[in-house]
């Protein structure tokens, strides 16, 4: 065991944890003010829900000893035998429990990413049940395929340093399935859905960018040269993505926008994620730039194709993830990482790019089909979507009985001595036909 590696991975884990509240702010600023808390909840609650699920069942399905290249067995159920002793096959120089906890943070943010797609119209109960099922049935198996020893995509030789397929393409294509099942927001394509607080979104972007150093450099699983290389590639991906989107804005609208630069940074980070530990600095810039440009174009698709992906999870995470995964096959360099491969432009020919295509295709097909089925199942049982009345009132009040912003002190404690109104309070659950706004 190496103390330096252990210290580094512990800190990286905390940084990846911090990305989820960052995502909550990033998404929360982009919705209307009546939906800010409900949107933030869908990220913040993932920290609660998925942490528990990961220990109970998620981790062992992802990283338990391989069964047929498809899934882990139940050896690590409830983190059994996941302790201070390193697991040689997974991460030889850090405690097994450090590796498992680092992976926990990835499992948390991935379903949280999906929530941007169905923002402003999802029932909280539907989100909780879908996230639970999705983590077990989609995330854990896919993490196994790509990252676990014996997983079929890993054995194939496809490269995904920090989660281009498992995290971003997976979340992005599940988001596409979600918007197809949940449907459009009331007024989509007609009303103005204007972000209510972009300062919050920019702060969230900064936190994501910071946390992403833990996400990518931490994926080296050691305090070493590879981590340093991935750290720089991460920063360059974000930077070039911001530049790429700003240029696209300038070309399309005649001016660059704050939301564009924030979105571009995230798009660049998404694109560099699979490549971070395999590329030199100049390709990192190219990947970030292409990611920013492609995603800036892709976010317009929802209006042309008519699907309501509220906060552009498809446009940024799916498209950015695909760009990054494929460009890894173009720019990967054995000189950066001996465990990688050479790509198309680094003398490796088409072999790696072909494997990257297979990994992308398999992720798309598996995640889309299973996510779609799970969403249909939850929709048919407990329901995914709020009522039209609840949607008008906003999910903060209808799902959580709270307001994100209260600028007034009016109101009285129910049961308190100040409470003089004779009318019974309207129940928290808002019934069909009622309208409290």
């Amino acid at each position, binding site marked *: 065991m190496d103390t330096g590696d252990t210290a580094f991975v512990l800190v990286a884990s905390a940084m990846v944890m911090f990305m989820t509240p960052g995502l909550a702010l990033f998404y929360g600023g982009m919705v209307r003010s009546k939906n800010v808390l409900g949107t933030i909840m869908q990220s913040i609650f993932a920290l609660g829900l998925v942490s528990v699920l990961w220990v109970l069942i998620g981790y062992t399905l992802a990283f338990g000893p391989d069964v047929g290249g498809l899934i882990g067995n139940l050896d690590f159920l409830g983190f059994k035998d996941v302790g201070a002793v390193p697991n040689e096959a997974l991460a030889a120089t850090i405690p097994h429990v450090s590796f498992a906890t680092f992976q926990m943070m990835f499992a948390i943010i991935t379903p949280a990413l999906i929530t941007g797609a169905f923002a402003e119209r999802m029932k909280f109960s539907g989100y909780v049940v879908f996230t639970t099922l999705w983590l077990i049935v989609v995330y854990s198996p896919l993490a196994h395929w790509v990252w676990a020893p014996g997983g079929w995509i890993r054995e194939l030789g496809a490269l995904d340093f920090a989660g281009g397929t498992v995290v971003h393409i997976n979340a992005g294509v599940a988001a596409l399935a979600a918007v197809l099942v949940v449907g459009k927001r009331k007024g989509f394509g007609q*009303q103005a859905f204007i972000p209510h607080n972009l300062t919050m979104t920019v702060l969230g972007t900064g936190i994501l960018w910071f946390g992403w150093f833990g996400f990518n450099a931490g994926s080296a699983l050691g305090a070493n040269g590879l981590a340093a290389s991935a750290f720089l590639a991460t920063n360059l991906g974000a930077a070039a993505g911001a530049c790429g989107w700003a240029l696209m804005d300038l070309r399309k609208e005649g001016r660059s926008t704050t939301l564009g630069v924030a979105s571009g940074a995230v798009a660049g980070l998404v694109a560099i994620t699979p490549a971070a530990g395999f590329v030199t600095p100049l390709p990192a810039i190219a990947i970030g730039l292409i990611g920013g440009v492609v995603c800036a174009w892709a976010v317009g698709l929802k209006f042309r194709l008519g699907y309501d992906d509220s906060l552009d999870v498809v446009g940024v995470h799916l498209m950015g993830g695909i760009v990054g995964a494929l460009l890894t096959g173009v720019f990967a360099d054995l000189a950066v990482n001996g465990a990688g491969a050479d790509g198309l432009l680094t003398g490796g020919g088409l072999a790696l790019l072909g494997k990257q295509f297979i990994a992308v295709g398999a992720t798309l097909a598996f995640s889309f089909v299973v996510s779609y089925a799970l969403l249909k199942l939850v929709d048919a049982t407990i329901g995914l979507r709020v009522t039209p009345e609840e949607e*008008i009132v906003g999910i903060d*009040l209808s799902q959580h*009985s*709270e*307001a994100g912003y209260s600028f*007034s002190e*009016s*109101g*009285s*404690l*129910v*049961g308190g001595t100040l*409470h003089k*109104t004779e*009318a019974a*309070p*309207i*129940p*928290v659950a808002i019934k069909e*036909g*009622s*309208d*409290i*706004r």
Partner: protein
Amino acid sequence: MKIVVAVIKPFKLEDVKESLDGIGIQGMTVTDVRGFGRQKGHTEVYRGAEYQVDFSPKVRLEIVVDDDRVDEVIKAIETGASTQSIGDGKIWVIPVEQVIRIRTDERGPDAL
């Protein structure tokens, strides 16, 4: 001249504006307000403490028109604002003594 004042549900503002556009009304002033009528408010819960909040968010519209247009303006607001449910709001009409366009100093109906 009259000022037509309406208090409506916030999410119906766009519909009301469209409806008023449709009869050629060229301007209006809106304010975000809070209030209640027969419709009471809602409850909010913070750390288990339940609060009754009676004042709901509303939008207040003000439109100054010549006397002969008052009825069609009322009709247009009703059309745009109605959801056939409690809390749709109210409209009231008040006489206006004088209207002045600041730029030109025009007075009366010419200034509308």
